[in-house]
């Protein structure tokens, strides 16, 4: 599984790691575990516990990363592979090389510093556990991106970072800026992530594997493939959106609504680096072509210049830093576009340097915000006298950002300048690059100067939201101190401080192509140095010239502040998700049921006709096969009844219902006739229950008769003709299709399999029942679940049911009966209703045990003879139903208490447990077992586990049916209470 070489194993043992490659898994899983653990502290108000958890997790990750250093030097790679979806050739593969290691170091290291900082930054009112939970989850997702050895896995973690970034930006969800910023970031990076997935799928398709190693090896194949350009464009869309490159840069400044630790961590050090990480990672496979240079280079150079230009004109401290981040990411992208090994080394070096100085600057900005209550540079000034340590640290970090010698930013910027002067691909872009680079350098000097000068120098600030700013607690400064020291150390002794790390990272990307380069401060007086000097001087001049304008101008660069990416984005969003949706709804949608049904029926008809039309309909000679006269006679009646139902359903509901029942009975007889006794039993029982239900419902429908209705308009008449036409078409079509199907020879499909195996495998002679409870048991399980859901829905709907006003009054018949009772001295109201059909009701009461017995009989014989859980369940519920009919709801409920919910629960559980029981014996869900047992009195009995499953079906059917019926029946009792409430209300008024 692992690809460690033996020599490395011994070396690992020397420093005490015995985990093998499994430390990769620990590294990936630990942050997620920490995130879940933090989530458990949600109830506590303590800030200490979650921050210690987060700190501990990041520290552990950092230590693991540092300890794993020996296993990645000299271009070595650690791999860990698990099976994931072998059917699709997907492996869960983790992979650590020098480049991934450098990123893991950044993620864990800066993560730890951010956690320490956030511990003091977050206030008492914030939900600290939630914050750390999200932060750790993000850390895990980010680790996932850099450690993925499979591009599909990478894409999943990529999406996860977008989601956690969304959650972290919207952490203060009471602020609308945070919500909007988060949504925009999610939309942009989410669309980008989707494009990335498409691109990676294309790449996987070209290479024939989703394994990162295989893709990186197949660079020549990929570049020669006809799908290279689409794959490249999609991957770039993913990378450029994530790294906020032009024209997708606009989400990053809006993401600054996040808490500052988040900005420092996600939006400067790690997540936005994921885009350039991916570019560098994929460069062996994708770079080197002209398309790559043009697309990546154009995006990078525009971003580099525009970002720096915009940064100068920001009034918000974090806004300035955000645009500066965009510009620096543009610098890295530009370097990567060049495709030369030296440029790649410079890009990797700058990723490292930028993370250190920018994270510290964000933290400093957070402290300033924390202490003064504002980030507006028009209000801030002269803070150095209050917070000299913060000021000094910020100055060093900004100097690094500006590229001042003896700091780390200078080194990578020099390397950038050196590469900019080189000619790579002779084109316009290449020729202007030195000038663009110098100009962007000058801008970055200008905004760095502005940052320091405005905030820390000048007169004392007036009118700050918080009076008397002072230095923060020491531990809040500690992360900045550490990062600034890193900037200095790297800047002064680069070869010793980061030489090995950079070498390992470059080896990770470039492999054997890693060039020779020198990491030193002094390369002699050469062109890059001249460019640096020009940039420094020009930047200082720009700042001096613009100083007065900047001190009071509006937020944003002149002219450009009108074209705000955010506005354009929102307009597009509104256009698509609101206007177009509305338009589509208006044009092609309707909320009326009739047109919808008409379209459904019409589409169904066309869908049935089209294949016949296309494949040509071959009429067969009609062979009259003889007609059974009795069968013809009952269907003659059936057809009349069906037509009668259709005709009477509007004005004569009861008659229509009776006729419908008649049709049902004839269908039932047909089933018997055609050798399907199981269906006949079920149909008969369902028919009875449905009729009773509809009878119960009739009570609540309005009176309707022909005389009171408005006369039919011409339009309505036309509509009727259209519907009639459609109905005739459907009817005729169905006649033809069913005749064709019935007269065709039945193909030998799956029926034989079931017939042959029902007894030997299912232990039953009733094949229909065996199919239901054994072969297709899982379907039946789903079906009874549906039945249960329907019953609960019916119950829930009826709980709030309030009949319409015109049906609130007592029915006419009851009123007449009560009047009759009241007129007689020897009777009291309700007597007639009680005595009505007395003899049948006594018979029905007596039948109760008989029907129960019948249900048991149906159930037990079900596996071998017609019957089974469904029909037994329906029969038993009919037994209950008859008691309600015989004595009335009150009478029945005084005597038997049915708890339908218990029946349903027990049924579902029994069925599920029977299925799960198979697992205990090592078989798949719902595998059944059967044998015969001798029972006293009963004799030899088949005892299959399927019978137990059938018992579950039985119980659930009883519960659901009874629940539905009782809920409906209770409405007549509830109405008395509603009437009483209404009466009380009218009395009050």
């Amino acid at each position, binding site marked *: 599984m692992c690809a460690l070489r033996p020599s490395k194993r011994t070396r690992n043992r020397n420093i005490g790691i015995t985990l093998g490659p499994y430390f990769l898994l620990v590294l990936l899983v630990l942050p997620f575990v920490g995130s879940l653990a933090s989530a458990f502290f949600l109830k506590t108000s303590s800030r200490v516990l979650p921050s210690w958890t987060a700190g501990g997790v990041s520290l552990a990750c950092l230590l693991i990363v540092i300890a794993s250093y020996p296993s990645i030097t000299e271009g070595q790679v650690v791999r860990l592979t698990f099976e994931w979806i072998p059917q699709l050739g997907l492996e869960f593969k983790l992979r650590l090389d020098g480049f991934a290691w450098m990123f893991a170091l950044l993620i864990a290291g800066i993560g730890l510093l951010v956690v320490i900082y956030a511990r003091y930054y977050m206030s008492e009112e914030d939900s600290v556990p939630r914050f750390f939970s999200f932060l750790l989850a993000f850390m895990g997702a980010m680790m996932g991106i850099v450690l993925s050895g499979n591009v599909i896995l990478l894409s999943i973690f990529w999406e996860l970072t977008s989601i956690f970034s969304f959650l972290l930006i919207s952490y203060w969800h009471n602020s609308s800026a945070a919500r909007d910023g988060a949504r925009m970031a999610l939309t942009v990076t989410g669309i980008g992530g989707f494009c990335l997935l498409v691109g990676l799928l294309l790449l996987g398709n070209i290479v024939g594997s989703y394994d990162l190693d295989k893709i990186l090896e197949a660079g020549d194949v990929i570049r020669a493939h006809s799908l290279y350009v689409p794959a490249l464009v999609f991957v770039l869309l993913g990378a450029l959106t994530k790294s906020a490159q032009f024209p997708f840069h606009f989400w990053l400044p809006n993401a600054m609504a996040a808490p500052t630790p988040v900005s420092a961590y996600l939006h400067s050090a790690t997540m936005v680096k994921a885009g350039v990480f991916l570019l560098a990672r994929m460069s062996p496979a994708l770079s080197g072509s002209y398309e790559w240079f043009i697309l990546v280079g154009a995006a990078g150079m525009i971003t580099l210049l525009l970002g720096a230009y915009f940064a100068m004109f920001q009034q918000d401290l974090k806004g300035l830093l955000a645009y500066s981040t965009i510009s620096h990411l543009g610098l890295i992208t530009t370097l990567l576009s060049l495709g030369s090994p030296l440029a790649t080394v410079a890009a990797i070096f700058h990723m490292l340097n930028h993370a250190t100085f920018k994270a510290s600057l964000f933290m400093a900005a957070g402290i300033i915000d924390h202490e003064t209550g504002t980030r507006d540079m028009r209000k801030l000034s002269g803070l150095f006298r209050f917070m000299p340590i913060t000021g000094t640290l910020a100055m060093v970090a900004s100097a690094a950002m500006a590229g001042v010698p003896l700091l780390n930013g200078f080194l990578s910027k020099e390397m950038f300048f050196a590469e900019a002067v080189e000619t790579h691909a002779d084109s316009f872009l290449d020729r202007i690059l030195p000038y663009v680079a110098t100009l962007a350098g000058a801008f970055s000097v200008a905004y760095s100067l502005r940052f320091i000068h405005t905030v820390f120098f000048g007169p004392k600030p007036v009118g700050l939201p918080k009076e008397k700013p002072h230095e923060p607690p020491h531990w809040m400064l500690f992360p900045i101190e550490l990062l600034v020291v890193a900037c200095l150390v790297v800047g002064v002794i680069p070869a010793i401080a980061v030489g090995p790390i950079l070498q390992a990272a470059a080896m990770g990307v470039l492999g054997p192509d890693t060039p020779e380069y020198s990491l030193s401060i002094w390369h002699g007086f050469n062109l890059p140095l001249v460019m640096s000097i020009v940039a420094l001087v020009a930047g200082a001049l720009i700042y001096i010239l613009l100083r007065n304008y900047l001190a009071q101008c509006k937020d944003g660069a002149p002219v450009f502040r009108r074209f705000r990416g955010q506005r354009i984005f929102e307009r597009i969003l509104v256009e698509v998700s609101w206007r177009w949706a509305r338009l589509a709804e208006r044009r092609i949608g309707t909320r*009326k049921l*009739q047109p919808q049904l008409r379209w459904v*029926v019409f589409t169904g008809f066309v869908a049935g006709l089209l294949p016949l039309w296309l494949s040509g309909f071959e009429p067969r000679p009609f062979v*009259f*096969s003889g*007609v*059974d006269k009795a069968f013809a006679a009952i*269907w003659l009646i*059936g057809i009349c009844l*069906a037509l009668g139902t*259709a005709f009477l*359903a509007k004005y004569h509901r009861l008659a229509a219902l009776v006729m*419908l029942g008649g049709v*049902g009975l004839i269908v039932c007889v047909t089933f018997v006739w*055609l*050798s399907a*006794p*199981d*269906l006949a039993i079920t*149909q008969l029982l*369902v028919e009875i229950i449905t009729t009773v*239900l*509809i009878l119960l*419902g009739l009570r*609540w*429908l*309005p009176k*309707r008769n022909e005389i009171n209705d408005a006369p039919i308009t011409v339009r309505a008449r036309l509509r009727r003709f259209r*519907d009639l036409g459609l*109905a005739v078409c*459907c*009817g005729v079509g*169905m006649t*033809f299709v*069913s005749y064709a199907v*019935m*007269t065709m020879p*039945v193909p030998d499909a*799956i*029926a034989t399999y079931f*017939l042959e195996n*029902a007894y030997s495998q299912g232990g039953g002679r009733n*094949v*229909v029942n065996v*199919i239901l409870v054994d072969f297709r048991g899982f379907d*039946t399980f789903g*079906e009874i679940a549906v*039945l249960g859901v*329907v*019953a609960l*829905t*019916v119950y829930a709907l*009826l709980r709030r*049911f*309030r009949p*319409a006003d015109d049906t609130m009054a007592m029915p006419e018949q009851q009123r007449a009966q009560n009047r009759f009772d009241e007129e007689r001295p020897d009777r009291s109201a309700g007597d007639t209703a009680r005595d009505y059909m007395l003899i049948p009701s006594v018979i029905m009461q007596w039948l109760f045990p008989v029907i129960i017995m019948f249900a048991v009989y149906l159930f037990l014989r079900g596996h071998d003879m*017609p019957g089974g859980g469904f029909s037994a369940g329906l029969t038993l519920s009919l037994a209950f139903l008859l008691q309600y009919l015989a004595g009335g709801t009150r009478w029945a409920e005084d005597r038997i208490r049915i708890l339908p919910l218990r029946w349903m629960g027990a049924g579902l559980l029994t069925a599920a447990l029977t299925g799960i029981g198979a697992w205990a014996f090592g078989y798949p869900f719902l595998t059944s077992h059967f044998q015969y047992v001798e029972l006293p009195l009963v004799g030899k009995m088949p005892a299959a586990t399927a019978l137990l499953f059938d018992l579950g079906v039985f119980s659930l*059917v009883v519960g659901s049916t009874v629940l*539905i019926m009782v809920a*409906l029946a209770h409405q007549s009792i509830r109405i008395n209470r509603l009437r009483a409430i209404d009466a009380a209300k009218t009395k009050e008024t």
Partner: protein
Amino acid sequence: MEIILSIAIGVMTFCGVWLILRPRTYQVIVGLSLLAYAVNLFIFSVGGVKTNVPPVLVDGTATASLADPVPQALVLTAIVIGFATTALFLVVLLASRGLTGSDHVDGRSDPS
């Protein structure tokens, strides 16, 4: 046999489709029931129209001469689910009638 059954299916489809396109909820529920009969019979008939064959396994009878169990199993579940949907629709109909005071499918009170 086949011709009678197919005409019956056709007529029930005709009545069902006509009814579900009507504006009154009661007509729709009755129409759905009729349509369900037609569809159930249709699915059932796909297995072949056989009279007087044993529906369960009998020793000594060839499996080919038995009734096709697969459509039967399908229709059996369809009958039960049909019952569930009818019940649900009935209650939705009642709730809509209670809320809007009308038995029009869209809850409108104007006649159409």
